[in-house]
Structure formats: C-alpha cells, structure tokens
C-alpha cells in the first residue's frame, strides 16, 4: 500500500499529493509518469511525476479533480493509502544544455514542470518559466519554480501577454534567441503553445497523458498520431514534438468515454458528496475528524442535507 504523506489544495480544484513509494522515488527521472489505482474497484490512470525524494522514499503528483478517479483521490487524506502505484513509466525527458529555453506550464502541468525546470537549470540552461492560470487564484508554485528559473512570468489571460502561447509568440517575435520550448498542461494549452512556435521553427516538447490502461505498452489505448505515425504515449512518450501531433485526434480520443464517465461520476457523487464538499471548501483536512459532526456543520446547506 502507498500511504499519502501530505495533501494540499494548491489552487481551486487542483491538489498536490505526496505518497510513500520508495522504489519509484529511487528510479524516477524528469518527464516520467506513474499509473495510479485508488482502490480495489478503481481505474488505472496516468499522472505525471511532480517530484520525488529518494531519501524520504516519496513521490509527488499534482492533479485536477475531474471524474470519478480523481474525485475519489481528492477525498483521501494524509494517512490513507492508495491501492497501487506503478512506475516510473515512459521515457525520461531528453535534457541537454540547449541554451535559452521556455518552460510553459499551467493547471496540473505545473507539477511535472518542476523536476524538468530543475534538471534544465542543472544542465546550465537559461530557463524562462511561464506559469499560466485563469486568474491569480489558479497560479501556484511560482516560488518553487523560481528557485531554478532565471525568469518567472505569470500569465492569467489579461494584459500584454494574455496566455502562455501569447508569451511564447511575443518572445519569439521580439527576436530573442530561444533554443527549445517545453509545454505542460491541458491538450488545448499545449496545442496553442506548439502553434505559437511553429512559424519560428523552435522545437516544442509537450507531454501527453491520454487515456491509458496498463501504461506499459500492452493495450494501445493511448495511441496518438505523431508525424503521421501511430505511437503509444505510454512507451514511445509521454513527450513528443508538439508540431507533429494530430491534436484533433488526440482530443477526440480523450473524450470518447464521456457518457460513461458522467454516469460513473454521478453515481459516485450521490454517495460521497460530503467528502467532495470537504475537499473543495478546505485547504486540507484531518482524516480523524473527517466524519465528525463539527466537520459537516460548517455550512447551512450541509447541515440541511446531512439532517443535523
């Protein structure tokens, strides 16, 4: 079993968790991911590694709560254990001294960017980090990223550089030399970031986590078209050249099970809404107190629904 060591809500609906997983911690490299199964009935879902500590034997993930598996995970607390974590999976990032690099990240993509930024800095790159959020509340870890970045920029959809892709476009147009771009975030953010660098022809590495089952190259659920060829994101990736990806195909495959996912989530939520409310309305909460009346009492609506 894999115990949750720390849990923190870092932005609305975005959670950072640290687990005990010593074997993964001692072999993880930037760019790799893990497959998580929350409980005995759970799905196997991929999560980019947001850090690890070999001494402590822990690994970190950052996830966005969307659907049954991540909702279940979000309601687990420090001291609880996950059924399974397998990894590290996928190819590690190719880290070289490229020169000047932009690392663009947003949402759950901020997580896997951290080990990447650190590794790039250690190789001697000039690292320009741009953190995207749909408002100041959604921006997190600028301090952690700042430790290893030469510049940190925050973009929240307004002002001169509205989004990460606008930032990339302006940097490239201003004539500054950029040798490599990395983008981590939702598929839309990574697509527009790749589009922004296409004209300038700067290689843009993106990290994909499509629907997976085993995560070891066995099922082919994660197939994605790259440069006209079918690749498995789990073993050929998760990193690919953003300019070569068939983004429309990727997004359609990501959305293929939405009716089933909705059904699953609706049923789960009926039985577990109170846990989800706890999770959404507090930064972190104590598992020992999770079900106590005091915990449930804090809003009028909850009192009514709980019949207190």
């Amino acid at each position, binding site marked *: 079993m894999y115990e949750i060591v720390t849990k923190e809500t870092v932005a609305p609906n975005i959670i950072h968790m640290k687990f005990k997983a010593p*074997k*993964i911690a001692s*072999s993880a490299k930037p760019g790799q991911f893990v497959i998580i*199964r929350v409980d005995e*009935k*759970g*799905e*196997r879902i991929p999560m980019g590694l947001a850090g690890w500590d070999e001494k402590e034997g822990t690994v970190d993930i950052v996830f966005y709560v969307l659907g*049954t*598996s991540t909702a*279940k995970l979000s309601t687990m607390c420090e001291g609880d254990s996950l*059924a*399974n*974590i*397998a*990894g*590290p*999976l996928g190819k590690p990032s190719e880290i070289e001294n490229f020169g000047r690099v932009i690392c663009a990240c947003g949402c759950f993509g901020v997580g896997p960017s951290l080990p990447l930024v650190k590794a790039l800095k250690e190789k001697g790159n000039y690292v320009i980090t741009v953190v995207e959020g749909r408002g100041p509340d959604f921006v997190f870890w600028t301090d952690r990223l700042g430790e290893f970045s030469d510049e940190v920029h925050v973009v929240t959809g307004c002002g001169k550089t509205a989004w990460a892709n606008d930032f990339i476009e302006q940097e490239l147009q201003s004539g500054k030399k950029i040798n490599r771009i990395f983008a981590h975030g939702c598929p839309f953010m990574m697509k527009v970031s790749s589009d922004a660098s296409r004209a300038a022809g700067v290689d843009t590495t993106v990290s994909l986590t499509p629907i997976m*089952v*085993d995560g*070891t*190259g*066995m*099922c*082919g*659920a994660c*197939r*994605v*078209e790259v440069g006209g060829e*079918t690749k498995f994101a789990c*073993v050929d990736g998760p990193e690919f050249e953003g300019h070569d990806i068939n983004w*429309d*195909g990727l997004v*359609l*495959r990501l*959305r*293929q*099970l939405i009716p*089933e*996912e909705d*059904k*699953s989530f609706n*049923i789960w939520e009926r039985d577990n809404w109170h846990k989800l409310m706890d999770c959404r309305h507090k930064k972190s909460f104590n598992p020992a107190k999770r079900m106590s009346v005091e915990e449930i009492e804090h809003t009028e609506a909850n009192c009514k629904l709980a019949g207190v």
Partner: protein
Amino acid sequence: MEEMAEKLKLNRVEMPKQSPEKRRSNFEEVALGYTPEQAALEANRCIQCKKPKCVEGCPVGVNIPEFILALRDGDMPGAALSLKGKNSLPGICGRVCPQEVQCESRCVLGKKGAPIAIGRLERFVADWERVTKKCPPCELLPPSGKSAAVVGSGPAGLTCAADLARMGHKVTIFEALHEGGGVLVYGIPEFRLPKGIVRSEIEYVKSLGAELELDSVVGKQVQIDELLKGGYDAVFLGIGAGAPRFLNVPGENLSGIYSANEYLTRVNLMKAYKFPDYDTPIKKGKKVAVVGGGNVAMDAARSALRLGADEVHIIYRRSREEMPARLEEVENAMEEGVIFDFLTNPTRFLGDHRGMVNAMEVVEMELGEPDASGRRSPRVKKGSEHIVNVDTVVIAVGTVPNPLITSSTPELKATKWGTLVVDERGRTTMEGVWAGGDITTGGATVISAMGAGKIAAADIDHWLRKNGKWSES
C-alpha cells in the same frame, strides 16, 4: 475381454455446460465440470497403457495414467499429489490447455473413438483439491542459499517460480500490473477461466515460498543487471508477447476501435463488465466486429455478446479451415450466436463527428497457393469492397513482444520479430538470464509457456548448484 471392450466404448463422458441462451448474458463459467460420478466413469475408460503416449504429449510431463488411476480408485489426495508433482497450475491447465492437440491426441483410445478426457479429469482433481484443501504438501528441498528473480507472473513465470521454490531456492516474482497472473487475468475471460481459480493457484505458488511483488515494472523501476548485482543469482524472464498488433489501415485510431488486449484487459482485469460498480468503463457496442481468427478473437467476440451487443461478427480473411482458434471455442462462439464472416478483410474505418467509428469498408478475399506456414494465402477479390455499419471494433490479429525490457538491456539479443534468442535450455545471450514463454516464441499457448518455465527452472537449478561458467553446460 468384455471389460476391455466396454472401456473402448467410443463415447467419452460429456461435461455439463451452461446453455447458450443463458450463458450469452452472463460472465460465469461456461463449462461446469464433472460430477464425481461422471469423473469416475470417464476415469474408468483409461486402459492404463504400459508405455503411455499421453505423457509424451504433455509439455510439463504430467504422469497422466498415475493420476487417473488414483482418481479411479477413489484416492483423491493421491491423484492431486501426482498432478501437482508436475504441474503447479492444474486448475488453469484443465480449463485452457488445447488437450486435443497434446495429451489427448496421443491417447490410444483415440484410434478407435474418443480419447480419454484428460483435461476434464485434470480439472476435476484440481477443483476437488482447491475446495477441500486435502492434498498433502509437496516435498520442498532444503534451502540452497541461492535466489532467483522471476519477471512476469504469467504461466511461464509462475511455473518457473514454483519449481525453483520447490528446489529450495529463494524466489521473488516481479509483476508490473496490480494483480498476479499475467495473460491469465488480463487476457482470458472469466467465463473461460474464473479469476478465483487463478488467484488460488497463485496462492499455492506463494505457499511454496515464492514472493510476489506487484506494481514492479522491471526495465523501468529496476534493470536486469541491477537485479543480478542486487542479490539475485539468476533471472528468468517470462514477460510474454504483450504488445498489440494493428492492421495499419486508415481510420484505425478512431474511438471505439480497441486492440484485443485493451478490450479484454478492460473487461477481465479491470472488470468493466461490472461498470459502474467498478470504475473502468468500456463502450458497450450494439454491432461489434472482431477482426481475427484465433482464440483471442473468440474471447473478445464472446465478451462483446455478454456485454449486451445485438450482433457480433468475427471478420477473418481466410476460411474456416485455416482458423487457428481451438475447435471447442469456435463451437462455443457459434452456439452463442457469434456470426462468422470468412474471407473478409477490413480496408478502412469510418467515423462520425465525435471521432467514433460507425462503419468499415471490407473486401472479399479468395485463397491462393499455400504460403511458407502451409496456410493458403488470401488475395483480394477485385471490386468486392463494400461498407458495413459497426459501432465497436476489436482488432485481434496477434501480439508482438513488448520491447520494454529488451530496449533497456542491450546484452539481450532479440530476433527481428522482437523475441528473445534462447538456447534449448532457455538461456539468453546474457549471463545469468533465462527466458521462456511468448517472449521467446511469440504468441502461443499457456501450457507451452509453462513447459518453457519448467525447462528453464531445471537448468537454473543445475547452474546454481554447479556454479559453472555460462558458456559451459
């Protein structure tokens, strides 16, 4: 003489099955197993040959006449002990072995009529032992002080681990998935091999002293040379041929098109047939096409029926004669209502605005001259292409070895098909490393993988005790 004539009676005792109408809507086991009376009757047909040919047909060398004799005499613990002496997974083999081309094909009764139903008797003894737990413990040799790492907990790995444990070696099995059993749990459906049986046979292997480490992806989490440096004296790779093949035709990446591995893994390992009680979903198609003609295609087609499809087609490019699936599985599928479209091949898939497959173009085929494998190679009939509507497609055209370990271990030499190069003892090109099962042969059967695991275990034992050089025997 009269007794002998009675024994040579042509018919074997039939095994009860769920009726096709009933079973096509549940995932419970199709074959129900012999009653004690039926087992005794069938066992009594065995004429106890002095030089039994059946044993030669068994890749793991089960002493078939011995266990049947014990069964006939009512000595069930003796029958179970005899069986388990050679085969650590009898409940599995009794269900999924192709006995008709192995032990049963050699049975002398087969010359006049039907051979002894060895598989059904094996299953009967194994099930008795599992329920009663009355089999005396197998003999274990004293600890050798040596240890072995077994990578993969499928049929090859489990057999190798069980044998090594019985020989007194310390064994750790590394499994990448969250459950042990490999293809036995992700590939073969519940209605053909209940997972409870796999679990209890794994428990048996563990009871011999083997440890099972789940979620351990060798090649990623730990490398082969790290295992050898980290305290293991030998490594056995039973990692299977797990990577799916696709047709490489346009539209194959549309949603609703699954590899057989994905389809069966969702259904079997992740229990998508119990969705939404279990979290893993699967598209429950109404009109399903399964492309391929092997056992995996039959498993996928029969699973699709059980998930509630109105119509399930097997699309196979050759004719029924060339189909590699076991006869029994083809008959089961036909009884349940699977429709067979022979001499048909998909050429492209079409989808709707959501990227879901909704049709496929197929061509008709005709058979030409036999190819290198002896099968007549199919040719496209010109102008025969036409569109058929489907909402789910499963591609079951075979698997190739997964390069996860070979790509990170340059010392392991592979063939151009990706299978590992091994000698007749299972030794790879890397010192201290053996391999067996689908990783060396490409997709084959459970029992041939078990046979390879057994051969490798014997050689590992020999090598560990002799402490000899790799190049010498």
